């Protein structure tokens, strides 16, 4: 006991400038090593970015700091004291707060209830809602946020939900704010707003740890950057001393393929066309209203838009998952009356929005997942040809570089990026004529992103038509031959990627132009 306290006071005097110190943290889950001997120092009142590929172990590391996971070995010090957080409440008590990548909010509870949950001001167990409201209002005004505290979360947009998450953490008196990929879901204007709020916070003495793989943002906003690769720290650098490409190479550990100019030409024949496509809504509002477009052979048409402006319904209508009015043509024949399976047989393939909900059976093995949709090719009579199915899965794993021990592990074991590679591989393996790719690289790292882009380009050069739905503007601008912007169920603009910029796109996407 005596030795322990002597040691921690020694630590305090030696490194008091650093508010957070992680030393030699290791953590493994069954079958996966998430962190291997990671160390990290974060200086007080700075924005410290942690960048790395998905599956590199950033999120696990932050969950360890927040007490959601316990490290197998290594030490955590906060404010100079060596600590072990057994649960989030201990981390919260020590001033560590976390805004998760997937928002941790209860949709049916109000903003106020969500903010105070877990550290409710009470008098003998009874909520002091008046006091709570006053405190939250004060914090909100101090960082320039305006929000109705009585609305249920389900009525808020993504940006507002994130603000609720931040308020939630600040309400707990957090000095250290961990943000897990905060910009993944925001449009450019919202990102700027977020960074303004964060700057105000740092000015009041709060320390921010910011996880991201959007390198431009990281370079723009952070004071220091730590790069993590395959569960270990590569280096901590200052944003001034690196550029985007160098950072990306540190993350991936090899030279990156660049956004090369396409050398092939867009073909002449139209492979996918929609005329006056409308999806009727439950209320008077139609999620998709009179949308017409066509995609030629070897062409990538990008659909940019903030989530929830009809892209999802458009994809489902093209595939036949929801009923629609208007016509859909594949290679000149009207398919709007055909079933989903018949459309797929005509050469349609779909990378769904949410790989975990629509793309994969998380509990099933990889080979079973890669079999989905190809059962007929991979069976003998009524029986599945196990050897062929596993073989085809191994081919996908190899060709698309899925990091996994083997094809027998369940899909939930893989990191997000690897799950996505499997989904993409499953759809490209059979060389479809038309690919509808919804957020093909959402939430995955640069390395995996480059691999997916490369595969899409290669198939395009071979004549595949691609409808690329994405909120990632870099992706839309880099891949597309033409860009359509969807806003409020309609196509708001058609732009040429050569002349469009993220700012112009952002304005159309938010309906401000």
């Amino acid at each position, binding site marked *: 006991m005596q030795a322990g306290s002597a040691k921690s006071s020694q630590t305090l005097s030696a490194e008091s400038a650093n508010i957070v110190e992680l030393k030699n943290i290791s953590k493994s889950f069954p079958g996966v090593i998430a962190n291997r001997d990671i160390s990290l120092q974060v200086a007080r009142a700075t924005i410290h970015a942690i960048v790395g590929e998905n599956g590199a172990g950033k999120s696990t590391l932050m969950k360890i700091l927040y007490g959601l*996971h316990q490290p197998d070995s290594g030490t955590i010090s906060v404010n100079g004291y060596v600590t072990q957080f057994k649960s989030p409440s201990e981390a919260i008590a020590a001033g560590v707060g976390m805004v998760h990548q997937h928002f*941790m909010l209860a949709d049916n509870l109000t903003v106020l209830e969500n903010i105070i949950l877990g550290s409710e001001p009470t008098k003998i167990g009874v909520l002091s809602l008046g006091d709570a409201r006053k405190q939250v209002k004060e914090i909100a005004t101090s960082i320039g946020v305006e929000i109705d505290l009585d609305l249920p979360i389900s009525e808020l947009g993504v940006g507002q939900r994130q603000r609720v998450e931040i308020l939630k953490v600040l309400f707990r008196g957090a000095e250290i704010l961990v943000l897990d990929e905060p910009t993944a879901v925001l449009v450019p204007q919202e990102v700027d707003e977020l960074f303004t709020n964060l700057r105000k916070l740092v000015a009041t003495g709060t320390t921010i740890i910011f996880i991201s793989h959007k390198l431009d943002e990281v370079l723009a906003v952070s004071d220091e950057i730590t790069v993590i690769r395959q569960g270990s720290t590569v280096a901590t650098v200052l944003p001034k001393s690196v550029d985007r490409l160098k950072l990306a190479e540190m993350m991936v550990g090899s030279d990156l393929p660049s956004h090369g100019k396409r050398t092939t030409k867009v073909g002449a024949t139209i492979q996918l066309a929609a005329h006056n496509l409308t999806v009727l809504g439950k209320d008077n509002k139609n999620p998709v209203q009179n949308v017409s477009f066509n995609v030629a052979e070897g062409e990538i048409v990008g659909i940019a838009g903030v989530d929830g402006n009809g892209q999802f319904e458009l994809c489902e209508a093209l595939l036949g998952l929801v009923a629609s009015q208007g016509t859909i043509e594949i290679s000149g024949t009207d398919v709007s009356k055909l079933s989903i399976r018949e459309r797929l047989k005509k050469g349609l393939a779909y990378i769904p929005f949410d790989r975990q909900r629509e793309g994969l059976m998380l509990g099933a093995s990889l080979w079973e997942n890669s079999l989905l949709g190809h059962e007929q090719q991979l069976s003998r009579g009524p029986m599945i040809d196990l050897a062929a199915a596993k073989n085809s899965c191994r081919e996908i794993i190899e060709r698309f570089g899925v990091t996994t021990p083997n094809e027998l592990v369940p899909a939930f074991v893989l990191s997000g990026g690897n799950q996505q590679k499997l989904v993409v591989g499953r759809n490209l393996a059979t060389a479809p004529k038309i690919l509808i790719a919804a957020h093909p690289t959402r939430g995955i790292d640069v390395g995996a992103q480059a691999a997916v882009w490369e595969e899409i380009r290669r198939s395009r050069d071979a004549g595949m038509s691609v409808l690329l739905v994405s909120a990632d503007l870099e992706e839309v601008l880099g891949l597309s031959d033409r860009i359509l912007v969807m806003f409020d169920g309609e196509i708001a603009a058609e732009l040429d990627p050569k002349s469009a910029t993220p700012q112009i796109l952002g304005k159309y996407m938010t309906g401000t132009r």
Partner: protein
Amino acid sequence: MITKSKNSRLLMFVVGALAVISSVRLWTGQDALTSSSTIGTALRLTVPILLAGMAGLWAERCGVLNIGIEGMMIFGTWFGAWGAWQSGPWVGLVLAILGGMLGGLIHAVATVRFNIDQVISGVVINLLAFFGVRYLSDLVYVGKPGGGISQSPPQKWALPRFNLPILSGGEVAGWKSPDVLGRLETNRWFIIGDFGGITRGLTSDLSWATVIAIAVVPLSAWLLWRTRFGLRLRSSGESPVAAESLGIKVNHLRYYGLLISGGLAGLAGGTLSIVASSYYRQGQTAGRGFIGLATMIFGNWRPSGVLTGAMLFGYAEGIKLVASDSITALFLFIAAVSVMFFVLAVLRRKRTQIFVALGVFVLSAVAYRTIDTVPESLTQSLPYVVTIVVLATANQRLRPPAMAGVPFRPGEPH
């Protein structure tokens, strides 16, 4: 300001409904529609359904489906009757609650500790309770005077009943107070007579168990929405992952929620075997646990909604018991109400609502003109028909706890 206009709207609604039912009563001459005896019976029948509904509400609010309410009620009827037979009704009620909590504990251990499917666990509890108490009856009741394998010996004492003083002629320290509402009821004037009948039904011949059951509603609302415990319990049902990330012990709260749920279900059973009758009988719960779940859905997982739903079912069952020939008058009542909805729908220009109201009006008017007597089996199925209609129509605007029924394993990567 807002609450004031809300109150005045509620008042208008109540007066309007009274006017309609009063007109129907005068038109058809079916005084039983709003007589104090009908309402009193309806109230007694409301109580077990209300408690079962609240049991469902507590379970689902903390995130666990409770199909086992029926079984927990069976535990309540048996243990309640045993306690009341041995040591009087109050001990009986306490044992009924403990018996139900036993069921709740089994459900909690199965679903929270061992992650067994919540529906399967509930069904197993229903079966376990049915056969378990039969076994206990074999051990305890067989051979006792009046007892047997399927029923307990009758209880010697009943819970005291009382009338409210002045309003319904209750006695205060030996003084027989006037029965104001009773006098209003006997004059049978338009609206006034119905008001008297209904309120007298609600204030006379009351059992303390009824008072306790009704008190559960505001108490639950207060606990769930005004206390730290309640907010945390609801968060376990809405988003256990978020709750856990804020250091809330979701599984502990699910234990508490299920114990409260079981206790309420047990109390519901106890009122059946101690208040509504004076002995335990096999099959006494008669599916009320499931009707309770239906009122929970009807009530949109809110205590006041559950109360409304339970009263609706209680009234439907009460009128069937007290005056089954009044049921034809109810067709006229439904027709009249659909006319009101028709007018509202036309004003709001909601096309589907117009057609639905019109359809219901035609059906009920035809039914009233052509049906003289309703067969017993049909009247008995009335509460169930109401359940189905309500569930089918209310489906759109329901907001159940988002994660009710989804198992939660703390500390897993997600």
